Each structure stands twice: as structure tokens, then as C-alpha cells.
């Protein structure tokens, strides 16, 4: 059973940050859907609900998603459905149920860098930056590698473009966690292939994507890219699937995603 010693509704982001630094056991509250699964002993629980961070804003060249935005809001947002073939709404649509998605927040999901995350995999094939209160903006893939200990993720900033994208995943029961997820995109800067729930967190298959960049990929190019992706990424086993199975379906899902984007 987790415990919370103090609960504070932060009035400003500065207050929230200061409180977070005051004690090692202090923590920012996200959607709290996973809180009761653990036995965390939280000193001060800091609530960002009043900081207006639950907005999705479209600017001239970006879409900004506030940290407290729920997955349900991502799923139903007009702009996010319009851009990138709706890859972000599609990525979150199978997560448990609408009530759960109403609770889960974008910020906590990305900050926690969960391996099984559907959302992170989709974000990875877009031009996504993570905005942190103290460290400022950093590219998502760098953030996924390095993390940002004891900072506050305030929003995600996605560059608008005519990127075409596809989201593929394998779940057994429809609302189970994914056994594997794949996002593919193609834009002016080339192709991107992201694979998550391997079961490790999502990563880009850079070499594989390069193989697609020279003109319109043929069947042979796709096959080469698929094989390369499976070689360059690591796969593992957990209770949902073995390494062998994940490698086998990765090929199918990546190929399916590439063909959808073509």
C-alpha cells in the first residue's frame, strides 16, 4: 500500500518544482492509475491539476500537448486526428477503456518511459520534443535515453508537417497491454521506424529506416528493412510473449506499417 504524507495542490509550476526538490520522496502526481499497484512512500504529493497543463494547443508550426492532458483527450482531439494520419489517437485507443484513458496523463506516461507504452512509440516517429521545467526542450529520443531526474515535464511539442504515419500493434485480448507495437512515418526528412513493448521501451530502427529512403521502396527493400530492424533492435521475453515470437511479429507489423504509409 502506497502512502502520501502531504498532498499539495500547486499554484504555480515554480512552487511545484520547489516542492519537488525539497525532499527525495516528494513526487508529482500524474493520473494515479498505477499508484496503488506499488508501495511508494510519498512525502509530498504535488498536484499539477490547477496549472492549466491539460490543454492541446495548435500553433502555427507545432502542436503542444500539456502534461496533464489525458489519453482520452488525445484520442478525441481534432488536430491530433487530422495530422499524421491520426497516429497519436490511434496509438492510445486500445488502452483498457475510456475511463482509464481519462485518468492517464500524457506527462506521467512519457516521464515514466514505460516499456509497454503505445503512446511513446507513436511519438517517436514524429518530430517530438519534451519540454521540462528546468532543463528546457529536448528531443524525445534523447529524453528516453537519459531521462530527466527530478524535473517536471510540462508539455510535449510536436512539429507540424505532412508526415504520413501508421500505428501497428499486437494485443491478444483487445484491451490488454501490447505484446509489441510499431509506428512508422515518412516525411520530408525520410522514414522512421519505432518499435516498442519489445518488452523494453520503444526505440528507433535507424539503419532499417535508411534502407527505405532511396525512392519508392520495393518489396525487396521492405524485406531488407524489416530484417535490418529486427537485427538492430533487441527483443526480449516476458509473460506476454517470447523473444522469438516478438521478432516474428515485428517483421509482419513493420512491413504492414510501411505498406500503409506508402
Amino acid at each position, binding site marked *: 500500500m502506497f502512502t502520501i504524507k502531504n498532498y499539495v495542490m500547486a499554484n504555480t509550476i515554480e512552487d511545484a518544482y520547489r516542492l519537488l526538490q525539497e525532499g527525495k520522496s516528494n513526487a508529482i502526481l500524474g493520473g494515479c492509475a498505477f499508484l496503488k499497484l506499488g508501495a511508494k512512500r510519498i512525502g509530498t*504529493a504535488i498536484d499539477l491539476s490547477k496549472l492549466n497543463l491539460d490543454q492541446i494547443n495548435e500553433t502555427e508550426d507545432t502542436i503542444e500537448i500539456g502534461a496533464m492532458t489525458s489519453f482520452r483527450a488525445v484520442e478525441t482531439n481534432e488536430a491530433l486526428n487530422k495530422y499524421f494520419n491520426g497516429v497519436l489517437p490511434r496509438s492510445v485507443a486500445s488502452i483498457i477503456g*475510456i*475511463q*482509464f484513458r481519462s*485518468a492517464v496523463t500524457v506527462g506521467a506516461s512519457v516521464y515514466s518511459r514505460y516499456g509497454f507504452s503505445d503512446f511513446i512509440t507513436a511519438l517517436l516517429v514524429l518530430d517530438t520534443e519534451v519540454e521540462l521545467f528546468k532543463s528546457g526542450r529536448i528531443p524525445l529520443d534523447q529524453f528516453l535515453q537519459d531521462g530527466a531526474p527530478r524535473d517536471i515535464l510540462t508539455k510535449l511539442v510536436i512539429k507540424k508537417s505532412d508526415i504520413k504515419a501508421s500505428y501497428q500493434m499486437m494485443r491478444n485480448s483487445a484491451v490488454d497491454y501490447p505484446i509489441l507495437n510499431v509506428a512508422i512515418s515518412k516525411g520530408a526528412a525520410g522514414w522512421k521506424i519505432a518499435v516498442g513493448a519489445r518488452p523494453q521501451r520503444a526505440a528507433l530502427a535507424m539503419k532499417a529506416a535508411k534502407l527505405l529512403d532511396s525512392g519508392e521502396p520495393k518489396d525487396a527493400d521492405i524485406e531488407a528493412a524489416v530484417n535490418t530492424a529486427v537485427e538492430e533492435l533487441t527483443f526480449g521475453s516476458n509473460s506476454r510473449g517470447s523473444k522469438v515470437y516478438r521478432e516474428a511479429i515485428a517483421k509482419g507489423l513493420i512491413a504492414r506499417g510501411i505498406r500503409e504509409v506508402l
Partner: protein
Amino acid sequence: MRIEVIVNNRKIEMDVENNEFLVDTLRRYGFNSVKRGCDTGNCGLCTVWVDEKPTLSCATLAVRAAGRHITTIEALQTEAKEVAEFLVAEGADQCGFCSPGFLMTVLAMKKELQNPTDEEIKHYLAGNLCRCTGYVGQLRAIKKYLGVA
């Protein structure tokens, strides 16, 4: 901590622990329609409305409900009975334990979706588990209730 919550349009002052979830608070204050079916946010039994939105009360810290409007099925008996009559007419009301949460989601869906397809209905309601009926009878009933059968 002492919080003020508006439950079913009435202001209530509640004493809550910092690590308490709304489902337990609501039951403690006599809103017995709210059922707890799991500990992981998967079953949907505890669904109530927070500011009109269907929400898992088992994943909502009670302290975060301060100042919010909470609606349980106790306050929506007329609307709930309308849905229930279709479920009962279909025979798709078995043990009934999942029903309050299910109905809260159905009522929210009715406000949100216009003429939904089967797939849209199933997707909207996917977070509400039922072990008795096998779902298809519920779908027949809900479609009749929505007038999309």
C-alpha cells in the same frame, strides 16, 4: 484531510486519507451503488462521473475530488431505469454487480456519441467488464435503448 465535494448536487464535507481512493470514500459515505471490482483500473465497476465525465473512482485520489461534481447512479435513477428496462427486457441483466458502473458509462456515451455503430459502442464500453452475460445481449439492449438497433 477535510474536503468539500458536491456529490449528486449536494455539498458534502468528507474526511479523507491522503492515499484514499474515491470509490472507498463514496462507499464510506453511503453511496453503495459504487462497486469495487478490482485494484488495477481494469474492470470499470467503480465508474462514476467527475464533472460529468465517466471516471474510475478507484483510480481517483479522493483529495483530488475536492470542489468537483461527483455523480453516482443514485442521482440518475430515472435515466438509469430507462437503460435498465432495455437490459432486463433482453435478459442481459445477470448478477447486476457490474451494472451501476456500466450504466454510468452508457449514460455518458449517450450524451457523447450520435448514432454510434456497433464498433463505436463496443469501443466506448470496452472498459466495463462483465463476466455473466457474454456482452452480446447487452449490445442488443443498448442498441435498442439508443434507437440504433
